[in-house]
């Protein structure tokens, strides 16, 4: 079981990771998200022992590393899939995957599973970005680590493969009973694959909870905005009921908010019906395949986003009737001053 | 032609010399263009039981090595055959040279008999001149008159042979005259790296006259008979100094001494004279072809070992600004 206490990391004098606390269960998959440059890669490298930590402790199974007593990476038995692949350019795909293996059965298994069989004898330089990423993945998993770190393992794969692979990796991690920390940009990936989600902002963990809780009751506006398209609608909160220009709605106060609040609305919490006497005006619309996303300015000036079936047609400037359709309580944040 | 071939009177023939047997290490210092390889090969061929090892090198470097070896108590060389007498003096001054038997040194011409080393061949200072413009009688016959002539001069002040020549001039004429001479020549001199270059420069007509040992000219002419260069000599001054390369015995036993005897044999001496154009120093051996007999040149009387002390010469050259 991985336990991280009070971890801080500095580059020179700038703190890049501040006071991180984490504990992972036996086979838990933790998704780490956050804006670019917030320190995700840095955390993974610190856990792997690739950069020195300045404070705190990392413990896993039979080792415990601190700033004073570092444990070298090769003693940690962690696996890592690097954002920039880090394939050995002088070795073939097969040799990369078998790097320190004596029994190559597992390597074969992963090469097979990731569709790399026909590239076995190719050098990495000949592969496309996505192919490289799959080799990196195979290499890590074939070495049976006690704990896996994934730095945007799927960021260079196409959507179809990504979707399948995502679940294959998750299942493999679960089957092996290895805990993992998985960095991603993809909020869909973060919410669906992980057992828990950690949202990082400027080196600080803003929330660490189940996907459902992070999504429904974000700890901050930042988290709300980061996980899915958040719109905010002003309202008056009394107890667990809020009144807005779109009518009343059930609400959950965040950080004991009261009175003037901003209500978090997601595109699916709303409905949109074309109506000449509606309460909003379409700003823009985007086609998304199955659905369309509308941005609508409602009375009071708030711009809200709402997702409809692709069969609903509306043009910018059209007047529409908006309503809150969700039945679950909505997160309410104290109004910013 | 084999060095052991023609026989001349007065000098000892190799036929009369004892056979050489055993291990012998010879440090062979070249540096001015000696070619002794064929001599050594012939001696080896004649003495199959001789295991001759040769270490070749720049003469001064080998001299330094011998001194360094002696200091460290490592003796590897039995003999040191050096191309110039200065290096011989250097080793002798360090007390490393073994005294030679009188019956050996007695074979040499008078004036070339030294107790601790044996000159093998001599070379004479000459004034090679460009025959495209000049005849021999236009070249001054006194070296000290050279600055006052209107000839352009090629020289190689950094060359050991030149420095020995200048040392002789210093000994003969004094420091002041030598310094004046240097200044005078320097005004119309072109500097070359070595005396072979000087002779080549003269042959091309780059300069009118050069200062060089005799054999460069002779060798050049032997390869290129129509070369536009010939030799002129001064009289009875440093300009026609006869210097010598020599050999030093460094270890005990008969073998090194007997080896030296071979070098002074009639066959070796005449071979060096005919093939390398060096001047034989054992009486009765013919001088090289194309060179006037030594007797007609009248070289100055100088103790060659004194030429080893180059330091004052170098200081003088520096102060004049030719080095």
């Amino acid at each position: 079981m991985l336990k991280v206490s009070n971890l801080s990391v500095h580059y020179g004098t700038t703190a890049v990771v501040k006071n991180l606390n984490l504990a992972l269960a036996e086979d838990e998959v933790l998704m780490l998200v956050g804006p670019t440059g917030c320190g995700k890669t840095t955390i993974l490298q610190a856990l792997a022992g690739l950069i020195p930590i300045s404070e705190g402790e990392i413990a896993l199974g039979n080792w415990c590393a601190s700033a004073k007593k570092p444990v070298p990476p090769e003693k940690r038995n962690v696996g890592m899939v690097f954002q920039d692949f880090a394939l050995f350019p002088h070795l073939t795909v097969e040799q990369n995957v078998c790097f320190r293996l004596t029994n190559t059965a597992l390597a074969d298994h992963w090469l097979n599973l990731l569709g790399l069989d026909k590239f076995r004898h190719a050098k990495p330089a000949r592969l496309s970005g996505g192919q490289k990423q799959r080799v990196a993945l195979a290499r890590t998993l074939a070495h049976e680590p006690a704990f896996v770190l994934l730095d945007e393992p799927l960021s260079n794969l196409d959507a179809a493969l990504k979707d399948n692979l995502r679940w294959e990796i998750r299942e493999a991690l679960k089957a092996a009973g290895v805990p993992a920390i998985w960095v991603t940009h993809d909020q869909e990936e973060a919410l669906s694959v992980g057992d828990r989600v950690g949202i990082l902002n400027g080196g600080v963990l803003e929330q660490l909870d189940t996907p459902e809780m992070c999504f429904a009751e974000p700890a901050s506006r930042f988290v709300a905005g980061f996980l899915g398209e958040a719109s905010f609608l002003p309202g008056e909160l009394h107890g667990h009921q809020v009144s807005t220009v779109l009518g009343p709605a059930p609400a959950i106060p965040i950080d004991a908010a009261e009175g003037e609040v901003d209500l978090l609305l997601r595109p699916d919490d709303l409905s949109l019906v074309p109506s000449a006497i509606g309460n909003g005006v379409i700003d823009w619309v985007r086609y998304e395949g199955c659905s369309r996303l509308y941005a609508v300015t409602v009375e009071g000036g708030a711009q809200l986003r709402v997702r409809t079936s692709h069969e609903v047609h509306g043009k910018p400037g059209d007047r529409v009737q908006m309503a809150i359709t969700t039945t679950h309580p909505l997160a309410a944040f104290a109004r910013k001053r | 032609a084999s060095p052991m071939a023609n026989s001349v009177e007065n000098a000892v023939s190799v036929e009369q010399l004892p056979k050489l047997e055993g291990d012998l290490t010879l440090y062979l210092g070249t540096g001015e263009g000696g070619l002794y390889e064929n001599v050594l090969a012939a001696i080896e061929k004649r003495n199959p039981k001789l295991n001759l090892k040769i270490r070749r090198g720049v003469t001064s470097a080998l001299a330094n090595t011998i001194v360094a070896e002696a200091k460290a108590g490592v003796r590897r060389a039995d003999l040191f055959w050096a191309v110039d007498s200065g290096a011989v003096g250097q080793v002798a001054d360090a007390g490393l040279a073994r005294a030679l038997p009188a019956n050996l040194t007695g074979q040499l011409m008078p004036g070339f008999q030294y107790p601790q080393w044996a000159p093998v061949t001599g070379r004479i200072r000459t004034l090679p001149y460009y025959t495209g413009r000049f005849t021999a009688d236009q070249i001054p016959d006194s070296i000290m008159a050279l600055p006052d002539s209107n000839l352009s001069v090629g020289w190689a002040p950094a060359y050991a042979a030149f420095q020995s020549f200048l040392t002789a001039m210093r000994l003969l004429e004094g420091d002041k005259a030598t310094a004046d001479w240097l200044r005078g020549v320097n005004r119309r001199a072109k500097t070359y790296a070595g005396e072979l270059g000087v002779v080549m420069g003269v042959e091309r007509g780059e300069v009118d006259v050069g200062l060089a040992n005799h054999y460069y000219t002779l060798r050049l002419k032997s390869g290129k008979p129509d070369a536009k260069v010939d030799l002129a000599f001064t009289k009875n001054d440093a300009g026609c100094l006869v210097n010598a390369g020599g050999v030093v015995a460094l270890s005990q036993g008969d073998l090194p001494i007997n080896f030296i005897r071979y070098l002074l044999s009639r066959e070796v001496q005449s071979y060096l004279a005919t093939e390398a154009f060096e001047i034989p120093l054992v009486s009765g051996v013919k001088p090289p072809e194309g060179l006037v007999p030594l007797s007609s040149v009248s070289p100055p009387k100088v103790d060659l070992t004194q030429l080893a002390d180059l330091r004052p010469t170098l200081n003088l050259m520096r102060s004049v600004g030719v080095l």
Partner: protein
Amino acid sequence: MTPSSLLRWPASYPLALVIALMALVPVGVLFGLASDEVQLFDAHNLTVLSNTLLLMLFTVLGSVVIGVPLALLTAYVQMPWRRLWLILLAAPLAIPSYIGAFTLYAAFGRGGEIENLLGLPVPSVDGLPGATLVMILYSYPFVMLTTRASLLSLDASLVNAARTLGMTLGVSLWRVVLPRVVTGIAAGGLLVALYTLSDFGTPAIMRLDTFTRVIFVEYNAFGLSQAAMLSLQLLVIVGLVLFLESRVRGSRERPGRHLTIWPGRGQQLAIALSVVPILVLAIMLPLGVFGIWLAREGTEGFEFSYAWNSAHASFLAAIFAVVLAVPVAHAAIAGRAGRLMERMTYFGFGVPGIVMGTALVYVGLQLPFLYQTLGLLVLAYVLRFLPLAVSSVRSTAEGLDPSLVRAARVLGASPREAFQRITLPLTVRGMVAGAALVFLEAMRELPATLMLGPTGFETLATYLWRVYEAGYFGRAAIPGLLLVLMSALGLALMLSGERRAEFDVTETPHS
């Protein structure tokens, strides 16, 4: 920076320190020799000093001007017989510069061989311009090889970015590629500078009064201690050059795709025509002049064992130099102290060979079991030419992507295993180039070979010198040719090793 360098002494430091100290031993001997007599610099020597510095400066500039385009050519341009071009262009390293200087001197000028042969008057080659020309011809390959090694470990696809931004190929090479190989160029320039400082033959033949000549005069006049003192003063200049080079900072980056430039037929011809004069002057002219003399005088006395001796000793030197260079190069990358150790190994390259040779005789005499053995000769070669290996190993090692080593560590490899399996194979190219340089330099080395080899050990270089000294130039033709041929062979062998190490995208389209 790797974590190990932050947490403790880099593993390469102790070894590098030992090697650096070893390389300093000959310099220490010079101090010992010089202490006998102290006569400092006199005023006359100022012109000598300025000649020396000018020769060095012009030679370095000229080598860069010639060597860098040739590096681009051999690294990126797809030409027919590209390996042959590379080998020919590196071959001048195998020719002793005194041979080159002498033949150039003999060929040009009034009454020179060219005038004799063609009847055309040609200007003579001597003085500062002549010496500079010769030094450039025989040392530009240093710049070419180090720059080429850097170029090959560079992400040259950035040229593509520059070109799509509207920049022509030439300008993008200039602005996008060259600034990133300044370390490689500087490393080559350093070697050229040191080589120029220590060379005696060329300035002497070209009648240029330089520092080495003063040293040589002293040495020949048996002023060994004065020569040692002057050599130490020369070392001050060497130190200055080393310092200047260490100020050059390139950017460190991850290796990437190679660039391939496809010239058209006409361009290929133009390139060939611009390269040929260099080869004519540096290789064909000396061999041709020797050939003329060979025809005139005939040859005798040459044995093929000389060639074997040359190759054997040089090969051993190349191997050992590279083995020793690896820890030094890695120490240099790891930190400041390592950088200092690396710098220390460079001193041996800047001292005139004969003085260095004498110093090594003193060193050898302290090791009687080694004295006058092949072992000591190889050691001497290694001490003299270590910088050649170090500089090319370092420049490739610097281009290594640090995340590769991290990946290996995370997969469970100890630092040692990661070094053996990742760092080492990925720097093979630099090691091969370094070995090639050492091999070529050792092939043409003279003073140390004469002074330290086993008695009777004759190599191509010593034989060449022997017949040159004796004025039997015709006999120099065969060993000269052999020297060039064998060096080319050695280069070819090593370059085939390099090809195997070329893992990146050299499998170019349409190949």
